[in-house]
């Protein structure tokens, strides 16, 4: 029993942080918002080169052969840096649902995939940068074409309806369900990362912004709000890690839902508090806080709302 990141995972985290920072950090998301996807796609290529786009692809197919635990550790960093694009789709969802050739393409970064999943993800993220689109239903997967873009509360996200074109391929519903769970869990991990970033930015700002002759972070009403964010995030992360470890067991779906509810709630609290701590500057697009704030809200809504996942847990508690 050692419920901490392994040295290897810490090394992966360092590598991911380095690559993203070297490629512009939050500036990548900012450019993506403005319609300039080039820095984001360059970052994508760099991550692929480091093997990270193939995190969940077997080594035999040129992937990294990583575990679900490795995935959540990396996904948290994607959330921290607010990396744009259909990353979760390409790293977590599609590798389990496409054929070997496409899987290898996803791993080496030549393919960027996005998808709709009937019910939980009715619109596909950032289809404009993807060269593979899939419409996924309960028991089959079909190639698809995107319709027109719809805006999101997070300006770094564009959402597209897809229309199936090719003939659907049968896929075991259990495999689809588990790929969706994995994506949901990666989304939860990303929410923890985004929440951590919002908290870190808020704490830094609270130390330097002065009003009434003192840093605003000295005032207890802000301190206590920030302390609550610290607590919420600290207790959400273990749920994400715990769910990663129960992959493949009968408890997994319920654990994923718990992680998503807690991470979503913690990130929402972090977002709301970050805005309060920053005052009006936080309410502007000029300030980076808006990047993480919008992402927290959008990712909390995506891959199943808190209501959806609470109901899933409630049903499971009634059944067991």
């Amino acid at each position, binding site marked *: *029993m050692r419920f901490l990141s392994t040295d290897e995972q810490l090394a992966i985290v360092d590598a991911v942080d380095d690559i993203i920072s070297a490629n512009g950090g939050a500036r990548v998301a900012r450019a993506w918002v403005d319609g300039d996807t080039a820095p984001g796609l360059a970052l994508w290529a760099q991550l692929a080169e480091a093997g990270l786009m193939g995190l969940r692809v077997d080594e035999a197919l040129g992937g990294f052969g990583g575990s679900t635990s490795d995935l959540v550790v990396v996904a948290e960093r994607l959330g921290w840096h607010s990396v744009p694009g259909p990353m979760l789709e390409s790293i977590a969802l599609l590798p389990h649902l496409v054929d070997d050739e496409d899987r290898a393409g996803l791993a080496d970064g030549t393919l960027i995939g996005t998808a709709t999943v009937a019910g939980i993800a009715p619109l596909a993220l950032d289809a404009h940068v993807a060269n593979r689109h899939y419409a996924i239903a309960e028991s089959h997967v079909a190639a698809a074409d995107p319709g027109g873009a719809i805006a999101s509360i997070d300006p770094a996200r564009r959402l597209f309806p897809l229309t199936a074109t090719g003939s659907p391929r049968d896929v075991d519903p259990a495999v689809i369900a588990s790929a969706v769970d994995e994506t949901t869990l990666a989304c939860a991990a990303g929410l923890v990362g985004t929440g951590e970033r919002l908290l870190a930015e808020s704490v830094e700002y609270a130390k330097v912004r002065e009003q009434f002759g003192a840093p605003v972070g000295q005032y*207890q009403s802000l301190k206590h709000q*920030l302390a609550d964010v610290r607590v919420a995030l600290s207790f*959400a992360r*273990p749920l994400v890690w715990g769910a990663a470890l129960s992959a493949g067991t009968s408890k997994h779906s319920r654990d994923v839902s718990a992680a998503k509810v807690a991470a979503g709630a913690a990130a929402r609290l972090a977002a709301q508090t970050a805005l309060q701590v920053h005052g009006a500057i936080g309410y502007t697009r000029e300030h980076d806080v808006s990047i993480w704030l919008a992402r927290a809200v959008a990712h909390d809504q995506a891959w199943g709302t808190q209501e959806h996942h609470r109901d899933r847990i409630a049903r499971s508690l009634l059944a067991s």
Partner: protein
Amino acid sequence: MNLDLTPEQDAFRLEARTWLAENVPVSPLPSMDSEAGFRAHREWEATLHAGGWSVVSWPAEYGGRDAGLIEWVLFEEEYYLSGAPTRVSQNGISLLAPILFEYGTPEQHARYLPHMTDGSLIWAQAWSEPGAGSDLASIRSTATRDNARGGWLLNGQKTWSSRAVWADRGFGLFRSDPSASRHAGLTYFLFPLDAEGITVRPITQIDGDTGFAEIYFDDVFVPDSDVLGAPGDGWRVAMSTAGNERGLSLRAPGRFLAASARLTELFRERGTVGTRTADDVVDAWIGAQAYRLFTWGTVSRMLDGESVGAEGSMNKVFWSELDRDIQATGLRMLGAEGELRGSGAVDGGRWVDDYLFSLAGPIYAGTNEIQRNIIAERILGLPRDGKKA
């Protein structure tokens, strides 16, 4: 990361589960805040001790099993899930013993540790005073030197001392050097509650039981052999227990796993998916799982040689609010029956009793406001409040 247990740890868990299943009293004991209940809980401590389960992580020479931290948490999970009684000896075992091990003399170890584990010596924590709650360093009760008798004379008043009504001994801080700065002139004493000059006045709690008491000291003599740590060093000694109290030792995850399991049981009998109550039951379940997993993270760090420190304040805020939410949800699910107490009520009124006690969680062991200050200042590094006495 992993949560894998060794075969030995699994066997340990099973052994604990089996013993508890055979020994936990079938009908719940009366409240330990009543005279009969206190006695019954003392006897349960003796039973636990006889079975070798009183203090699993202690050295064998004091009645423990030399078990590691992981085994301790496993035992706590099993303990609460089995429905076993609350530990009337917890002040001694979880608050005093850790510092006794660290600061006590070998003679003090021999004199106190063995009796702490079998229910024969129950301790009360005498820290708070009428004028010193959150601001504990402002205590005014005094200790004056009595060289002739080789000890100290205690004077003053302590309050809100849990279980002091029936407990045997107390431990607490007294101002031994009035000229020293607030934190410097304090000394940590151990004393019998039936000593000459001590008066214990029971205080009735909100639930009607006499769970805590005031203690008056009128020239109470305490020999040097009952000073814990060095004279004047009491603050440092005391603070090393405060972390224990807020963190792991007072509120092991098993307690809330069990409470959430009872809530889930009630939900199966009375609940409907998609209601606000269902959401609250789910949040309670998530909270209990989160607390359990967070604890495993803490344990892992401790096994790596790190200490808990200010992180205990996060635990404190989390468990106390989780407990309050669990109990409030339980009451709501009982509907009109949710106000009933005693034998005519569901589960003998346990939901109401536990609810009332849960309301004190954000107050005792350092209020949650104080814990949030600690989190903000020591974990987040925000500036300290300018105004300091």
